[in-house]
């Protein structure tokens, strides 16, 4: 019951004395009470639980965290044993386009090390 997910605030209105927003969760738009995040602005991401925004997601911190996560194990990659490197190469060769059907730009993205 403590699950809460981030969504983007697309509209802010006043209803019944409450600050209500229309919040987009990957295409699904819901009415969300914004009373607990009075400083919220259009375009902010809010973390929503049972129809209430509990916090404004700190986008800068989220990016820093992701950068840390991506960097994690980089050392380990650099000094991996030959066996580990073969195992990783084998795992990668089966995805995403084993038959060589990938367009050039897709493989370029992969080489650049951005799996997303």
């Amino acid at each position: 019951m403590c699950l809460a997910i981030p969504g983007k605030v697309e509209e802010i209105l006043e209803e019944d004395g409450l600050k209500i927003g229309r919040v987009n969760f990957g295409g699904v738009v819901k009415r969300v009470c914004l009373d607990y995040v009075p400083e919220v602005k259009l375009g902010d991401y809010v973390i929503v639980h049972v129809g209430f925004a509990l916090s404004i997601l700190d986008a800068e911190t989220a990016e820093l965290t992701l950068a840390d996560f991506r960097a994690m194990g980089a050392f380990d990659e650099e000094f991996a044993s030959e066996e580990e490197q073969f195992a990783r190469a084998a795992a990668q060769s089966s995805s995403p386009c084993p038959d060589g059907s990938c367009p050039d730009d897709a493989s370029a993205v992969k080489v650049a090390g951005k799996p997303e």
Partner: protein
Amino acid sequence: MKYLTEFRNGEIAQRMAREIHAVTTRSWKIMEICGGQTHSLIKNGIDQMLPAGIEMVHGPGCPVCVTPLELIDKALAIAARPEVIFCSFGDMLRVPGTDRDLFQVKSLGGDVRIVYSPLDAVELARKNPDKQVVFFGVGFETTAPANAMSVHVAKRSGLKNFSMLVSHVLVPPAIEALLSDPRNRIDAFLAAGHVCSVMGTWQYPPLAEKFRVPIVVTGFEPLDLLDGIRRTVVQLESGRHEVENAYARAVTVEGNRPAQKLLEEVFEVTDRAWRGIGMIPNSGWKLRAAYRDFDAEQRFDISGIHAHESPLCHAGEVLRGALKPDQCPAFGKECSPRHPLGATMVSSEGACAAYFNYGRFLSADDLASAGKAGN
């Protein structure tokens, strides 16, 4: 979805798991308090990516599971009344009471409804002035701001036909009770991210200090969980016991002040009995005197409740982390999501439900023979 999918990247998860293997030299028992995190760990197989010595112990952070049977029976009695529209979050409907559950009350003619938000129940009260609308207000600190706002709005609007059956519980007193138990075997805690979005992290340093345990505030996505576990192990291995925030994009030290202000106005701290665990002092919230008119237990005369727990159900030991769901003799036999003996088998945060739904009822032999049959 932005800020979700990035935190589910399998390749990064593998690297983070390797980091955890690299820093682990001893056996450690880490409890994730929150049932939502239990489900994420089991669903994503994160517990199986960890070194053999790291045991994830599943905690009591499932509000539906710890709601006392007596209160479930009260809810069923209120929901069966002809003048009542009884509203609840969905995962309460299959929780077994002594004789039946809310689904069965509905099939017997009770007006039982699932709402997305407690504000929807307030709206139902406005639209049905000839009915009594009751909301089952269960939850931890995460859900409490929504419930507090609903009672507040009902009072402000002068609604006479809205009330709440309140069973709110709090995380820090539960951690204290678990660590004070002489049978305790937990070395460290992952604190529940969204509880801390509301309450902040300031409540935890005294606990970390008193019991000398690391407490790492952790999110719910696979990479968040792996990072929380990694930070916990690093602390344990270096003999530190600090509060760390591994969910900084959603959690601050002070938490959500406007929410805390309304919580303080609507609720006051009370002792609560936790199903399967027992009475924990100052471990819950009840409505303050100014909101007593909205308390369903005051509004309805509910006497003659004789709650009776199934002797086969070991949910209490599961909730304390003393037993893994698949170690319960009834797991997958007398007890399944179709025929649950306890709430842990049906709640979306129950550890037994996680083990059952994600196939942990199969032994290694079962899996091997299933593999052979498949070939």
